[in-house]
């Protein structure tokens, strides 16, 4: 059963990711990005990373995408629909992405990967213990980073930006 779930979630993630870059309208792109992120949270659940799945839905699909939608609706982005895609950019883009995809494929195929499923569960208790013992310094630095980002955003959105 969970095998089928993996394929369903993986297909949803990839198709919605493709629709993000195909869509002309930025609002549709944002909506498909929400779908892609939510189905990736499903993949996290299948990998027994329950806490990260919850954080993914709360932070990405909730906070970050609301921010995106606010900014899309704040700016007037209707002009996008009239512009055409640059042919040279498309050709070089597809070529370089095909090259990097080939590199990914070869490296996945030629690397010996661990195959046995482990018993590590990513629930809140275990992650919290690890976070507040081994990783307490990066955690504190991260809180300072968030404070700096908050101050910077307030400064950037002031009316008289010099």
């Amino acid at each position, binding site marked *: 059963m969970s095998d089928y779930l993996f394929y369903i979630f993986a297909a949803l*993630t990839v198709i919605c*990711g493709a629709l993000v870059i195909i869509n002309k309208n930025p609002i549709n792109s944002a909506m498909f990005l929400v779908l892609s992120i939510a189905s990736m949270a499903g993949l996290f659940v299948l990998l027994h990373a329950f806490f990260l799945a919850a954080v993914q839905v709360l932070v990405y699909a909730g906070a970050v995408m609301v921010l995106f939608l606010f900014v899309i609706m704040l700016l007037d982005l209707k002009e996008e629909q009239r512009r055409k895609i640059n042919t040279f950019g498309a050709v070089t883009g597809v070529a370089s992405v095909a090259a990097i995809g080939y590199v990914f494929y070869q490296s*996945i195929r030629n690397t010996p990967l661990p195959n046995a*499923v482990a018993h590590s569960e990513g629930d809140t208790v275990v992650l919290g213990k690890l*976070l507040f013992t081994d990783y307490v310094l990066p955690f504190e630095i991260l809180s300072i980073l968030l404070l700096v980002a908050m101050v910077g955003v307030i400064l950037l959105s002031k009316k008289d930006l010099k």
Partner: protein
Amino acid sequence: MHIPLEHYLIVSGILFSLGLLGVIMRRNLLVIYMCLELMLNAANLALVAMSRFNDNLNGQIMVFFIITVAAAEVSVGLALIVALYRKRQTAHVEDLTTMKN
């Protein structure tokens, strides 16, 4: 029977390639930003899958940090885009050629 690690890594690789394609091809700053988020998510998926199959939770801690940093990055970047739009009335990379000549 269970899903091997390769399948997760292939999904992650496809998603990263899609994000990269979007960053190269799209001309709207906001859509470029969304594609960056897609690439970060692909990296997160690879890290979580590796952490599961190696019986090591450090990868999940790394993903937690990545999500937090990405949230901070998005807020600052969107504030920059709004400030830019206020000054130049555009969010299109082809119109932002001040440093070209």
